[in-house]
């Protein structure tokens, strides 16, 4: 059993605080327009790929009077589906981006230390022998039986743990950052390749939502495992290092 290095502990809590802020502010932003689309275009006048039953905004146009959107015979009508009370984007967006700055800085510090000290190679990347079918099967069985007798705080992670951490750090989070940037008009003006990469602004927004869902799932399982393996000792290990 080894303890968490101090830079891991600092980065962990910075990331944890900014992640929770990003999740809450991101959810508030989603509440303003809880409809998801694919491609470049999606709005109240086009069909949604997925409509989420959060906030009243997804309800049809009873909320505000419908207006004709162009003064032509037979023009489609549009209605804002928002109650003003649900649009907290003035501060929710600014808070989201402020938290994103802290998140990205903490993430860069973590990766820099992680590679420089070989922490990532040593502790996070699975070894070849761990990927042998019998070893994978054994680790799966241990998890399914909820048998954490050998569990402890700090590195010396098991296979599923390593695979979870590496896929969050090297797949989900980079996709979240890239899809987030793809929603910025200034950034796609400079780098339109981002729009091609994700198949358009709305597709990037939809991928960003599913990334959020995956991270929430990770967060719930992560906290559940911390509790299952000794909340006090885990918290002490990540805070004081012992």
């Amino acid at each position, binding site marked *: 059993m080894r303890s968490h290095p101090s830079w891991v502990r600092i980065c962990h809590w910075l990331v944890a605080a900014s992640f929770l802020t990003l999740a809450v502010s991101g959810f508030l932003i989603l509440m303003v327009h809880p409809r998801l689309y694919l491609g470049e275009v999606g709005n109240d006048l086009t069909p949604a790929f997925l409509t989420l039953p959060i906030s009243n905004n997804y309800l049809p146009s009873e909320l505000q009077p419908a207006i004709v959107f162009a003064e032509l015979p037979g023009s489609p009508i*549009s209605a804002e589906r928002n109650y003003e009370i649900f649009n907290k984007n003035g501060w929710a967006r600014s808070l989201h981006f402020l938290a994103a700055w802290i998140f990205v800085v903490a993430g860069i510090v973590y990766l820099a230390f992680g590679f420089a000290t070989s922490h990532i190679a040593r502790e996070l990347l699975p070894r070849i022998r761990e990927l042998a079918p019998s070893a994978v099967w054994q680790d799966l069985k241990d998890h399914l039986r909820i048998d954490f007798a050998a569990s402890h705080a700090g590195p010396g992670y098991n296979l599923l743990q390593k695979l979870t951490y590496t896929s969050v750090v090297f797949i989900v989070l980079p996709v979240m950052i890239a899809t987030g940037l793809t929603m910025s008009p*200034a950034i796609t003006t400079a780098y*339109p390749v981002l729009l091609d990469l994700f198949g358009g602004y709305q597709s990037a927004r939809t991928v960003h939502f599913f990334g959020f869902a995956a991270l929430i799932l990770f967060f719930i399982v992560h906290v559940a495992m911390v509790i299952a393996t000794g909340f006090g000792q885990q918290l002490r290990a990540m805070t004081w290092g012992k």
Partner: protein
Amino acid sequence: MTTRSPISRRAFVAGMATSAGLALTGCTQTEPPTYGHVLRMGDLLTYKAHRLLLPAHSLAREYDYRDISSVPAIGTTNPADPNKSIFNKEYGPVYDRLLANNFSDWRLIVEGSVTRPGAFSLADLKRMPSRTQITRHTCEEGWSAIAQWTGVPLRNVLQAVGTRPTARFVRFDAYDAYADGIDMLDALHPQTILAYGMNGRDLPISHGAPLRARVETQLGYKSQKFLRRIVVTDHFDDDWNIRNGWSWYAGI
């Protein structure tokens, strides 16, 4: 298109550095204020980072005719409607009278830090060089739409009035209660236009008739509708959005 913005990033960065020096002397506001508010500091960080790191000459993606979509009209859909919360008591009724005349008496006032302030009729603006672009409107709420916009590049209007070398910001005043602005880099961007046409027709009332801004490098709320006046300023002018808790810079 290979149009280049007349000010380089280097010059702009140098300008920012100079303005930081001015700010130290404590006389005037040369960048968006933060009011000591942590969220406004984050906005300012994002704005500075974009200006420092993003190339200044890129163009926003332009689309094909077949990509044109329906565009919801939100916010003010008629400035003459007094029941809207963003009704302008002074200029709402004026808009009603201009509309009755099909905007023939409408003039766009351009003034401030310029050598030849002017008032332009729609016909004047239509005689100037025009630009037509099919671009994506991206709302802060999360929806998007694609439309074709026709108008005069703001840079041509600014050239006509002769902006002074000290000019740094452009503020838009409208017939509703909104007022918002952009910096000179976005103002001189070749795709920043004052649009009088939408999808091959005159701009509809619900989309900002007779004239609206199109700022393609930022979110939809910077593309101000129902333009009444453009004020060129040397210093940041505290405007509607930032006073109401919204980020002045909306490139993200």
